[in-house]
């Protein structure tokens, strides 16, 4: 089996990176690694990323070497099979300011960008960046577009975007570097709700084009 690479992020965190290439099976192993490390002494938070997992710990309570050993011990165990979560449909108005740039970068018409984006069968790989922001796997390769060279200072709530090989929805107004192709009126985050985020890792997502 290929190696799990573990490297420090400052003195209070470790980043575990899974071997390339990224795949759904691999991402399931990220979720399993997070679940397995949750009860290790000194671990404060586990932040799953795309094909990686960041462990935040108290360096006065734990040696990073002990955490690295715990991660590697879990990594060599055979992976468990996992079920995918429920299907969530997201209505999208495709009128984003970067839609034209994405179409020309991909060498496609705007209609074809829409068709391919709504045809996708997406899976929530992890939640990050802001409350309820789901990173989705499953973006058609022909739609991959690099992030903007200068992030926007304020991206509107509900914006649907593409960043590299990823697509997703901004639950709140925020600075951000993704290419914006559309928007949804669905609430992805509500701090008073239980749970506070619409999507959870493992959920399946479909985008549905709408005009209102």
């Amino acid at each position, binding site marked *: 089996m290929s190696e799990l690479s573990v490297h420090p992020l*400052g*003195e209070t965190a470790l980043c575990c990176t899974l071997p390339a290439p990224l795949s759904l099976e691999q991402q399931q192993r990220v979720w399993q690694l997070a679940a397995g490390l949750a009860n290790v002494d000194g671990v404060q938070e586990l932040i799953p990323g795309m094909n990686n997992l960041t462990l935040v710990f108290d360096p006065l309570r734990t040696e990073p070497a002990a955490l690295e050993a715990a991660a590697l011990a879990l990594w060599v165990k055979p992976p468990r099979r996992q079920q995918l979560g429920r299907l969530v449909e997201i209505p999208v108005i495709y009128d984003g300011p970067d839609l034209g740039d994405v179409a020309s970068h991909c060498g496609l018409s705007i209609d074809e960008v829409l068709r391919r984006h709504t045809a996708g069968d997406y899976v929530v790989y992890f939640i990050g960046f802001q409350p309820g922001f789901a*990173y989705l796997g499953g973006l058609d390769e022909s739609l991959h577009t690099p992030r903007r*060279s200068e992030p926007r200072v304020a991206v509107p709530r509900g914006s649907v975007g593409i960043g590299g090989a990823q697509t997703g929805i901004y639950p709140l107004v925020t600075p951000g*570097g993704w290419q914006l192709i559309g928007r949804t009126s669905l609430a992805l985050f509500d*701090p008073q709700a239980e749970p506070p985020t619409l999507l959870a890792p493992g959920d399946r997502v479909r985008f549905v084009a709408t005009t209102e």
Partner: protein
Amino acid sequence: MIEILRAGPLATVQDLGRPGWRDRGLSLCGALDEFALQAGNLLVGNAPGAAGLEFTLGAATLRFHADTCIAVTGADANASLDGHPLRPWWRQRVRAGQTLKLAAPRERMRSYVAMAGGLDLLPTLGSLSTDLKGGFGGLDGRALRDGDRLPLNPTPALPARAVGIRPPDWTPAVRVLPGPEHEDFTAAAREAFWASDWTVTPQSNRMGYRLAGPVLERERGEELASHGVLPGVIQVPPSGQPIVLLADAQTTGGYPKIAVVIRADLWKLGQLRLGARLRFVPCTRDEAVAALREQRMLLDQMRIALCMST
């Protein structure tokens, strides 16, 4: 109750943040100068992590509607109580009806007001910290405004003796550890990173400081998969101008990380003003851990000394 007569440029309710929800994408938030907030709380007999008020560049006026005990820490804002100067980083009895004024500090950025007993607000997801971009926590999830009223918890027995703490020395230099992508930058970029004065640009906020200085170029230009980030991480977007993440930063990011500010020096970042110059000083992991241990010991010693003085 406290009445905010003038909130100044940016005033928020903050404690030590909202850990435990970063896998749901919730930022840590919390006081940018954690040391000052904790010291203030200890001075008034609170738990170090109780919520207090964070003021930015002073210019604030508060009226107390109950007897209490306060401490003003962080940036020295020439605080005065009914016109009488107040010693910064000292405990102070306050009577109902008295007015506290913070002027503009001559140096540093943020001042903290801790009140005995703390604020009587409902925590959101385990914390009273204001999450400004999420719009929750603190008072209605927003910055304080002129006219706001904040309920106080009943004050326990007020500590009587006047007592103060020496504020920590502050310099616009922070210790950093090399980040995971440090070696991906060109030799010239790495040298420039350590050797340059970096300017905090006006496009900065509680999420992060955008810095201006020499353009930092990477040898390898491939995009990174999104990964967890923390306050203190210094990421470099393709523009080559670094961004230092602060307490309100997002939980994950995709830009390469040239360095990480050590935990014990994060408060120094929080006291940097827009337009200020900043330098990065290399350090080792052992030094970073030792600095953190020393800082926690200092707070412990303060707590013990203050218990004995009441």
